[in-house]
């Protein structure tokens, strides 16, 4: 029996009043205490926990953290808490398998085990970076959708509506733009011959996210709705609006949250506990049936630093080993380097291998850390890479994964702060043939061959 949204709302109104700063500091104090209690230690020499015992302790610590401090509701300035019994019931009530997509593109998203052979679901497509115009958006998404190694596509944003009006969150332009772009994405997947493909998009505000749902031209019940937990361990009514919509209309709820290395959990050990705790928050409070268990680093604009790989990988492994929840990792979705570079491919591969081997899916698209408003800053080849790597890593054991991760870290780790910017679709794809330019294809093939040599069994 799961707690209802009404019960969660009640607790958000009647839970303990706490100053936000005190809640933030309680994360720090509690994680420091739990680090000692559960003897959790991050060893940079081992970016992957190959035995699982450390991951188990991280899971127990994260669970205790969530039960102790709850989640902070920024709307009501109160902590929302659940009991141990309620949390156990929430976890037990979550499905081990959901179906997404339609027709020939219908797929099962299952609980994945560590080193499991279960097929990871890959939702690629370019997130965050704006597209210059509707035609460009349509073309890039059609090409992404044509690639059979991806199971779904993330929707993006247009720089301007009708080429002239700015898109501003919280204004009618946001709703108009997001509805328009999801319709373009639907047309693109139909043009690619895959009308049932999963489509996902998430707007800054809940009204715009909810407005995108339309069985004919928008998001469908066979897609999922995102309910985001704010870093770290926080929730606002705007997030719960999305959950309420999902529950009311039978749309699967996908939660997402990132712990912050250097944030209030401070160190990697603390961030790993927060990653677990926030995942449980997404299940118990946001009513998610699958969720992204992630980590960011407050100092480096890449999500695949050595510390992040350990944090997210250990948390995912802990969740996979100790529950039957459906976990999404998507660790490789924010490289420091841009499209068209070897470093992008190395960073992306490292994250997606860790996600997959530790027991997660990867459904958060491709993108780099966005700086400025450079348009069309991504190509279908990064989607293919994400799909190829995730599918190839299924079934790999942790020791082999660690060997590859160390190789990849050695390739990019010292260049995270001066990563190459990469280039745009216009420069990386021949605009006549709509194929990657030879130089980009050569880079792609070389990196693929390198990883194949290391033991990644690509399907093609």
């Amino acid at each position, binding site marked *: 029996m799961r707690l209802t949204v009404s019960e969660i709302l009640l607790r958000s109104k009647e839970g303990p009043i706490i100053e*936000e*700063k005190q809640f*933030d*500091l309680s*994360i*720090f104090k509690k994680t420091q205490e739990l680090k000692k209690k559960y003897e959790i230690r991050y060893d940079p020499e081992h970016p992957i926990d190959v035995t699982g015992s450390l991951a188990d302790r991280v899971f127990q610590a994260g669970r205790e953290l969530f039960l102790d401090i709850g989640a902070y509701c*920024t709307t009501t300035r109160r902590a929302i808490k659940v009991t141990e019994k309620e949390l156990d019931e929430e976890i037990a009530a979550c499905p081990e398998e959901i179906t997404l997509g339609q027709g020939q593109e219908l797929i099962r998203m299952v609980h994945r085990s560590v080193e499991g052979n279960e097929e990871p679901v890959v939702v690629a497509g370019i997130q*965050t970076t*704006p597209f210059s115009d509707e035609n460009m958006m349509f073309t890039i998404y059609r090409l992404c959708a044509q690639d059979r190694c991806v199971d779904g596509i993330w929707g993006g*944003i247009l720089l301007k509506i009708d080429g002239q009006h*700015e*898109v*501003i*969150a*919280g204004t009618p332009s*946001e709703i108009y733009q997001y509805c328009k772009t999801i319709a373009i994405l639907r047309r693109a997947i139909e043009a690619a011959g895959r009308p049932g493909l999963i489509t996902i998009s998430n707007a*800054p*505000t809940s009204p715009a996210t909810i407005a995108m749902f339309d069985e004919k031209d928008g998001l469908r019940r066979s897609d999922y709705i995102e309910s985001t937990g*704010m*870093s*770290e361990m926080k929730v*606002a009514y*705007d997030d719960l609006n999305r959950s309420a919509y999902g529950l009311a209309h039978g749309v699967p709820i996908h939660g997402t949250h990132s712990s*912050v290395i*250097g*944030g*209030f959990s*401070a*160190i990697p050990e603390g961030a790993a506990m927060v990653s677990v705790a926030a995942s449980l928050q997404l299940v118990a409070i946001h009513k998610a049936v699958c969720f992204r268990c992630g980590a*960011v680093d*407050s*100092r480096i*604009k890449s999500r695949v630093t050595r510390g992040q790989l350990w944090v997210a990988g250990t948390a995912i492994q802990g969740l996979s080993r100790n529950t039957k929840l459906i976990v999404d990792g998507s660790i490789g979705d924010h490289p420091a380097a841009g499209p068209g570079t070897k470093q992008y491919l190395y960073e992306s591969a490292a994250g997606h291998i860790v996600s997959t081997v530790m027991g997660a899916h990867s459904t958060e698209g491709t993108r780099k*850390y*966005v*700086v*400025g*408003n450079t348009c069309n800053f991504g190509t279908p080849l990064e989607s293919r890479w994400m799909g190829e790597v995730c599918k190839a890593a299924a079934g790999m054991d942790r020791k082999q994964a660690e060997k590859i991760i160390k190789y990849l870290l050695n390739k990019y780790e010292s260049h995270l702060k001066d990563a190459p910017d990469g280039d745009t679709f216009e420069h990386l794809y021949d605009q006549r043939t709509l194929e990657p330019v030879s130089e980009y294809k050569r880079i792609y093939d070389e990196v693929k061959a390198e990883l194949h040599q290391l033991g990644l069994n690509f399907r093609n």
Partner: protein
Amino acid sequence: MEKGQLTPEEKSLLDSMEEAIIALDESQAVAVAEKVLSSGIDPKAAIRYAIANAAVAVGEKFEAGEYFLPQLVISGDLMDVVTKILERNIPQTETEKKKIIVIGTVQGDVHSIGKNIVATMLKSVGFHVVDLGVDVTSATFIEKAKDLKADMIALSSLLTTTMPYQKEVIDDLVSMGLRDRFKVMIGGGPVTKAYADTIRADGYGRDAIEAVEDAKRLLLAEG
């Protein structure tokens, strides 16, 4: 009074207060601050040296990856506590007026971590920082800045679709004839120096450390 003019005992007392702040030891810092107060050391000099040195040391630990956001927050609070103790012996008219910065994440945007780090680091180097939180409207920024007689408005945005709200604050200040009254600094993941120049912001920080340096340049250089 220069630090060199202190007696060895006075210097030792200020050093131990500085060390207690750096070590985040509240009870020790408070106890030493009380001793400093009763020792006859000029409290303004004590603030100027011991607390300023502690702030620098904490900042260095942050940059070195030894301290993180929680330690910045705790040390900032501790510096406030110690300063209040020392100010008991300073006439109201002589207390140093800190430059005031109103900071927040703009409307439609709920990302807070980067803004929190910048706010805490600005506080640790001696600014009076008023954090308005996230999803803050232009009207609220301007109203608070007016009420507090702030020197700067600092605007964070993590989304390309909320960056226009940074421009809106500047445009509103212009429309209200208040643009010259406040420095405006912007930052956040997708924000660039070029964008800051385009919307005529005074300052920009690519990261927290740059933001602090730019705030110092804008607010302290003018005296």
